[in-house]
């Protein structure tokens, strides 16, 4: 079974540019999450999809961030325009059930560098 995949693995962009990150969850997992770790700090939750619906987007830092999951399969996270403080590692995770005890399986992450 393939794990969670993310693309690209690395992205280096200039301040003000746009970047789109992609996440492909484990097949059959309805729940998809985005997290990020900025500047070596704690891993922070961004948002949670159940199928194509946003269940919780309380962690999205501002309106420069837009996440979509059309069709309930893969998800994209767009940052527009990117700022220096957006640099960090963006992780995607998926889980089969929607329960507190369910294991979230993480992808390898996308390392974003904004210059």
């Amino acid at each position: 079974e393939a794990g969670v995949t993310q693309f690209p693995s690395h992205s280096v962009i200039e301040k003000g540019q746009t970047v789109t990150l992609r996440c492909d969850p484990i097949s059959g997992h309805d729940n998809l999450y985005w997290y990020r770790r900025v500047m070596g700090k704690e891993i922070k939750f961004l948002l949670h999809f159940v199928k194509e619906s946003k269940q919780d987007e309380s962690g999205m830092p501002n309106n420069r961030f837009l996440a979509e999951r059309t069709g309930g399969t893969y998800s994209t996270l767009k940052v527009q325009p990117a700022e220096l403080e957006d640099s960090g590692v963006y992780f995607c995770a998926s889980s089969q059930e929607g329960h507190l005890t369910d294991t979230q399986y993480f992808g390898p992450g996308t390392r974003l560098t904004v210059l």
Partner: protein
Amino acid sequence: AQSVAQPEDQVNVAEGNPLTVKCTYSVSGNPYLFWYVQYPNRGLQFLLKYITGDNLVKGSYGFEAEFNKSQTSFHLKKPSALVSDSALYFCAVPSNNDYKLSFGAGTTVTVRA
């Protein structure tokens, strides 16, 4: 709010010695606790979780964790560390009303040969 804390930024051990990575928790209701590991240039990998039942939970790569309710701890352990165990370890807990994980700050483990 549910939270976990990892009191040690770094842990250094010699290969073959026991390894312990500490985690304490603060939760209301039943505690559900997770350990993840991030190897260099890799993503987060699930190690183990505590839901209920036995206080000693066994996981991947020879790791285990001991749930201690009186001390509100969930320390990760390995009886004999390997150099390949050198990585960044995270303790995590889901929030009560939704499923987002709150992570500890992480502990960098270095196992020297």
